[in-house]
């Protein structure tokens, strides 16, 4: 059984005691591969090779195309600066008023450098891994992308004051999100992560009013194309879990603030929960302390659909031995023939 078959079995509920391992790696993957975050974010070959190297070394169970929030934002017209050892910087707000939103042109994702780069990454993974390892694509969720285009504070206040304007922006983001997901699936992605980080900062009724149906639409769209859907929202989303339980996502990333036991009760048994050790602890703790925490977590979640991970991105300064410790704990749950 290869990693892809193993992943499929996890999702279908046929793996009962195996805990897979897939932390979110971006800057760490670049550093591990002796390159920079700037290069990883701007060159699909560097991204794919860095992640593949991490996959091999840490025995990760999937690989991903995640890099930064500004692929689609760039396609919409934002100027992006790549920082060697930092998250790419968005240099301008594409939407400053309602006219900008109305005039915003839907980009052709195949003709924009940064979206095309990620699509090429999906194809490159297939070339290197030959379909044996599940590959995760990535799109920005509608609210996160709207915030990238209009500014976080501005967009969050728009939600309170101007539903038409807010919906106009998010509707345009949805068109690109759907197309971008499709392009990555066409190039072999097995699942698509929907990153809507900012949603933890809005209340449940605002999520229901603006975002929930859009998330459902994306999940259904991804399913209709034959792939699985993962939802990633940074921070504490306990207040959103009842709404999220109806989205039919296959995998949900839960950050360290979320109580997994409570989350499982709300989300049901069918969804794969991925999480959720505090990345700061993964970075700062001794490997003995980390081992103890991870063992406790695995014990709690074993027998459920579960992927061991940090709550969010692994910090660049995380000791290799700490990440290896998590890998070892996952490996011990796997059948010997893997």
């Amino acid at each position: 059984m290869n990693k892809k078959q193993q992943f499929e079995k996890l999702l279908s509920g046929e793996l009962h005691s195996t805990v897979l391992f897939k932390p979110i790696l971006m800057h760490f993957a670049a550093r591990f591969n002796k390159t920079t975050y700037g290069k990883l974010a701007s060159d699909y070959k560097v991204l794919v090779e860095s992640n593949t190297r991490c996959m091999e070394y840490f025995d990760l169970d999937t690989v991903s195309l995640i890099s930064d929030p500004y692929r689609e934002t760039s396609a919409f017209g934002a100027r992006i600066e790549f920082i060697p050892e930092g998250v790419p910087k968005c240099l301008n707000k594409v939407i400053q008023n309602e006219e900008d939103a109305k005039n915003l042109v839907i980009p052709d994702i195949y003709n924009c450098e940064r979206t095309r780069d990620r699509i090429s990454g999906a194809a490159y993974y297939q070339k290197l891994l030959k379909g044996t390892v599940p590959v995760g694509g990535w799109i920005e969720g509608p609210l996160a992308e709207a915030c990238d285009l209009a500014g976080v504070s501005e967009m969050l206040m728009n939600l309170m004051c101007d539903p038409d304007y807010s919906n106009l922006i998010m509707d345009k983001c949805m068109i690109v999100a759907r197309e971008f997901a499709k392009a990555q699936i066409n190039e072999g992605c097995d699942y698509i992560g929907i990153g809507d980080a900012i949603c933890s900062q809005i209340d449940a009724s605002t999520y229901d009013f603006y975002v929930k149906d859009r998330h459902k639409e994306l999940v259904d769209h991804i399913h209709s194309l034959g792939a699985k859907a993962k939802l990633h929202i940074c921070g504490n989303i306990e207040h959103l879990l009842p709404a999220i339980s109806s989205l039919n996502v296959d995998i949900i990333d839960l950050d360290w603030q979320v109580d997994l036991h409570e989350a499982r009760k709300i989300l049901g048994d069918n969804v794969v929960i991925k999480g959720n050790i505090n990345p700061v602890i993964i970075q700062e703790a001794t490997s003995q302390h980390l081992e103890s925490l991870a063992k406790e977590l695995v014990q709690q979640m074993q027998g459920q659909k579960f992927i061991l991970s940090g709550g969010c991105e692994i910090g660049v300064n995380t000791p290799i031995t700490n990440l290896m410790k998590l890998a070892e704990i996952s490996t011990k749950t796997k059948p010997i023939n893997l």
Partner: protein
Amino acid sequence: MNEIIEKLTTCIEFGKINQKSPFPPSMRGEVGADELTKQALEEGIKPTEILEQGLIPGMNAVGLKFSQGKVFVPEMLMAAKAMSTALVHLKPYFQSGEVKRKGTFIIGTVFGDLHDIGKNLVAMTVEGAGWEVIDLGVDVKAETFLDTLEKYPDSTVGISALLTTTMANMESVVKMLKEKHPSTKILVGGAPLNTEFSNKIGADFYCRDPQGAVAYLNNL
């Protein structure tokens, strides 16, 4: 208490900026913080009373609800916007010295980090609590914090970081500021931080939320 002052507190707490603003829906069409502050001044209510009995209690109320998870960032932003709209009318009284600030608070997101939402919330809440706020923005270098502190030597400093990858940068900023200004109090905050980390890098206080910053500053 004066009815206008009471209404003003409600407007700040619920983010009612002015009569045109559709938020909150339950107050649609009513006058907001903008009109009420103007009216209060016209009726001869002292600016200090407007600030201390009207505006600050409103910000405190919404800040407390935010700490308790009863309201979220958009509601806080609306309250802060209502507050800043009201403060525009009080600006001449701050300049003349008739209304005094509690002190000066210098805030910025640490270098390498471009996130501003947490820093903005703290800045707005602290300003709403009666402090003068000097917001240095995002990606702020240690030297910029230091230069600003030298210009306003009695200030308190707040440093924000959202990422595990950038929180490590706080240590060098704290070290540089403490070397030159050992008595300056430094607050740190942001999603990946905790008290242990704050202690480790030599900061004076870890702010879990904006209201925590206000409580700390008010006790200085």
